Each structure stands twice: as C-alpha cells, then as structure tokens.
C-alpha cells in the first residue's frame, strides 16, 4: 500500500521560531490532507491539497504540495504555544481511504 515518510519525528522549538514538517512519498499522490492532534486529543482536519505545486495558507500555517505530487510540507511561522501537537500528513489511497504518516510531534518552549 501507499506509504509516506514524515520528517522529523520530533521537533522542539522556542516560541516564536519557525517550524516545518515534511511528508515524502515514493509514488505520485492524488491528493493529501493534513491533520493536527493536540496532546490527549483527536486528529483535526487542517487542509487538503490537490493540485501540483499548490500552496495554501491559513494564518501562520503554509501548506505546499510538490510539483511532482510526491511530497508536501507544512510550515508554521512564529510558533505559539497553541501550535503544540502532532501534525500528520495523510495521502489518499483509493476513494476516501487515508494513510496517515507517523506524524511530527511539535513541542514548544515558551
């Protein structure tokens, strides 16, 4: 089945620093979703990317889909303590079925 590698597994930053997580696949993806899971919480949908080279922004979060549709990234500018959590990428495999990456756990020093 389709698998993705997410890096890094863990990232610790000082509040105010930027953060980036990457999602890489060996195969071309039809689309990819990003989710955030707060500690003790459940995954919450952030965004879906569909088009090659697509860039979407949500306030301090910037999502990119690679030109070849084999990788994606999430960049957070000037992190805040509310950004703490695990960020998952999830490409689709067939209709509706998501395959979640291992996630990047972000911790922040206030």
């Amino acid at each position, binding site marked *: 089945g389709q698998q993705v590698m997410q890096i890094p597994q863990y990232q610790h930053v000082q509040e105010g620093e930027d953060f980036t997580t990457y999602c890489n696949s060996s195969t071309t993806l039809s689309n990819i979703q990003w989710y955030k899971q707060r500690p003790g919480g459940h995954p919450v*949908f952030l965004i879906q990317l569909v088009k090659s080279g697509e860039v979407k922004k949500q306030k301090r979060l910037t999502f990119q889909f690679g030109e070849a549709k084999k990788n994606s990234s999430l960049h957070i500018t000037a992190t805040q303590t509310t950004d703490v959590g695990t960020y998952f990428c999830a490409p689709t495999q067939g209709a509706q079925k998501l395959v*979640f990456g291992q996630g990047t756990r972000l911790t922040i020093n206030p």
Partner: protein
Amino acid sequence: DARVTQTPRHKVTEMGQEVTMRCQPILGHNTVFWYRQTMMQGLELLAYFRNRAPLDDSGMPKDRFSAEMPDATLATLKIQPSEPRDSAVYFCASGRTGASTDTQYFGPGTRLTVL
C-alpha cells in the same frame, strides 16, 4: 456543532473479556472509519464503511476483531477475546463521499487498557 461521539471514553478490562466500542457518526455522513493509535504503530486504519457496507477491513485482525454498522447512526467495533496488545486509543471518524476525498471528522476516542 455536529460531532462524532464515541462510548465509552475509557475502558479497562481483563484479558479474555469482550470489549465493545460504539460510535455515532455525524448525521448525514455516509462513511465511517475505525482507527487504532499506539505509540509504536501510530494511527492505523482498521476498517471503513460506506453507506453501512464494509469496504475495507484489511487492517483488522479478523480472528478477534469485528466491525459492524447496525444502522446509519451506529457503528460498533468488538474485540473478543481481548489481549493486552490491544491496549490503544480507538478512534472513529466519519465523512461524506464527494467528488474527491472528503474531510474525516474524528471522535474523541476510546482509550482501551487490557490487563
């Protein structure tokens, strides 16, 4: 504010006991997913349904796990007999089939501990 609900939120049981987890998808959603999350394996898809029909349960250990949707408002995941390695958080998620992959809305999860 529509949400996926799951019961129970926490379950502690002894090895060999039957465990039943329930999920109420968001009204109007026609796809339901069961995931298991552990530190070691991450978030694994166990099974999913569309319009109450099971589409894929390849991620589920068939000998002890079973998933059903008795009606559109209820999905169940059963483990019989349970084993300590089944200890995990089990999430249910629902979505609505569209032209492309739709958003999945996760429930709060059932934290299962098998002693």
